[in-house]
């Protein structure tokens, strides 16, 4: 019997340590399924999953798609481009249309913070937030946690340095919440223009230099810097950014010898991370992708199987 007292997964906020542990334990089981020759189970057979992506994302969308299929669900992908229709109207209108088709779970990505929560109020099925603006990306934080836990054996009392564009990063917000909830020490390393207001009170120690921020770190988590933010608006140039904040062999030396190097992808090689590091022995970037499928299987299975199985009104 699964006890998971949430109908949706809209963010890490609101999840207890027990909730997170339950999802990670279940994801460990899902990893085994994905590594078998026969990868398909029947736990969600007959259920319908719709992936509703208002923002293009090949990686996350295919990860959710594969997760659903491995659980035996029927998966449909809806990619809603940013057409001339106003974004919000598309969101509610599309949601209501899809809702009438009786899906069991909606996986939503949208460029606006709070979009998944708004949608969850309007539909009668479970909603999984696959990234809403600069707010949260809970399955990314869960897959990062799973990757760390499998490598380090624990999450508590480890030091995680999150480096780069924290200001615009939903991945950073979800990770800060989750790692604090699990008892890890979180640091952020970034130029001041890429840090949100009040970061000191968000549960992270703030460092301005990689040498100090990475010192004794168990995990170095790099964030993607959007191309339009590189030249002059938030940092002066790609060259200057890489000089101070790009992860190369020299900077990585400050961290523990067995520190993990992570990146949520897609990477800008030579901007936030040197190729030799991304492809190096400490990198677990490929494992993160594998854990992504497992975590999403765990999330959907947990949400759907902990609900009443009877027909909905």
């Amino acid at each position, binding site marked *: 019997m699964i006890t998971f007292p949430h109908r949706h997964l809209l963010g890490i906020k609101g999840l207890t340590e027990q909730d997170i542990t339950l999802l990670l334990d279940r994801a460990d089981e899902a990893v085994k399924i994905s590594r078998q020759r026969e990868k398909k189970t029947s736990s969600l057979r007959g259920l319908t999953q719709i992936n509703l992506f208002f923002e293009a994302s090949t990686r996350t969308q295919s990860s959710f798609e594969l997760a659903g299929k491995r659980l035996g669900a029927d998966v449909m992908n809806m990619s809603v481009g940013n057409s001339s229709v106003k974004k919000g109207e598309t969101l509610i209108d599309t949601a209501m249309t899809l809702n009438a088709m009786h899906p069991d779970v909606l996986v939503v990505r949208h460029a606006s913070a709070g979009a998944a929560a708004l949608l969850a109020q309007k539909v009668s099925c479970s909603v999984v937030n696959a990234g809403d*603006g600069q*707010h949260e990306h809970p399955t990314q934080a869960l897959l990062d946690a799973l990757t760390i836990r499998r490598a380090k054996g624990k999450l508590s009392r480890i030091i995680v340095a999150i480096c780069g564009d924290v200001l615009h990063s939903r991945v950073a917000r979800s990770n800060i919440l989750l790692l604090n909830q699990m008892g890890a020490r979180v640091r952020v390393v970034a130029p001041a223009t890429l840090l949100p207001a009040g970061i000191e009170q968000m549960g992270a120690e703030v460092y301005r230099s990689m040498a100090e921020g990475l010192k004794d770190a168990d995990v170095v988590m790099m964030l993607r810097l959007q191309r339009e933010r590189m030249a002059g608006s938030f940092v002066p140039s790609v060259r200057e950014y890489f000089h101070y904040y790009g992860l190369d062999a020299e900077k990585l030396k400050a961290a523990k010898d067995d520190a993990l190097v992570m990146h949520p992808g897609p990477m800008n090689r030579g901007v936030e991370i040197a190729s030799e590091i991304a492809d190096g022995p400490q990198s677990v970037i490929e494992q993160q992708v594998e854990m992504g499928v497992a975590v999403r299987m765990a999330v959907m299975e947990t949400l759907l199987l902990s609900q009443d199985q009877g027909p909905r009104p």
Partner: protein
Amino acid sequence: MTRPLVLQNLRIVDPSRNLDETGTIVVGNDGRILAAGKDALNQGAPAGAFVKDCAGLTAVPGLVDARVFVGEPGSEYRETIESASRAAATGGVTSFISMPDTDPVIDEIALVEFVQKTARDKALVNVYPAAALTKGLLGAEMSELGLLRDAGAACFTNGRQPVHDSLVLRRAMTYAREFGAVVALETRDKYLGANGVMNEGLLASWLGLPGIPREAEIIPLERDLRIAALTKAAYHAAEISLPESADAVQAARERGANVTSGISINHLTLNENDIGEYRTFFKLSPPLRGEDDRVAMVEALAAGKIDIIVSSHDPQGADTKRLPFADAADGAIGLETLAAAALRLYHSGQVPLMRLIDALSTRPAAIFGLEAGTLKPGAKADITVLDLDEPWVLYEKELVSRSKNTPFENARFTGRVVQTYVGGKLVHSS
């Protein structure tokens, strides 16, 4: 011609005479006040008067709301002049200034006259149109300020739009001064926090929403105050949200500038925490600030550093509010709840009733030169009768306004408007 009216046994609070006593209000058949006070019945009640016992109730000069957005012309589905006036009457507001942010923008004589005529034919309360300071509210060319003023524009404003160009503002204010008109502006820096949707700070950071820093309000306000001093124009900071802004206006006043300020009732009674998880009815411009700022603003109001309270009534529909927070429109309706929400400040002991009514009626009437804000003999009998202690709950379905975007849904209030008179005529009673 109406029947004379006598309201008996009520507490009368009239800031225009600093009067607070129990007595009687006598209204003549011309809709004007004959007498108001404890000795009002010395001459006896007029023959044929309708006499009403109002024991336990409090009469104040009808409220004057200097910042009301209406949907007419252009967005009548949100609010018409008529529906706004009914909301006003329900809330004890007997006069309001309508903002020029309509479609088309009120920047031509014919449009000022349209608002006046529509109000005369359909409105329950006095409606005074404000006209656009710049054509189309674009901030580039001044409107026909003289002609608009002569047509009856109550003041000039750029509505929701700040005037970014300092030279345009200087010339418009210099010109407006010659016609004795107040220039009322909201200040918002064009660049700083330009993509912001709520108060900058920890809360916005957690919600992943771009913030609006305090300086985005304060810096352009300081500029406007300097231009007001330079041009000697009458300037009104239409909607300030920060104690630094109140201080800036006060400092300019002490330097001799003819400047005043207003604050919305929302910024006196709500704070950024009310946004919770993306509640768009609390998305306002200027944004709701922190609790410390709110408390400081209540103190500034009590001390008279902030002159007036406005509702900043801004009707929005599902099309503009049922959206992700950043995509939703700013604004909240407020005419119906203005008095009740303001009475929270009285009941909490933070603002004396005399000052509160001054800020809601007497002072705005004086700033904008409206015939209102007093219960003196000879004045138009615009009277709001309150039960200061009646508890009630605001339910959405009971709202009179065409739009339902109230930040006070299901809120509990103590104190309610029980009767509203405009020119001696009863326009609302609960």
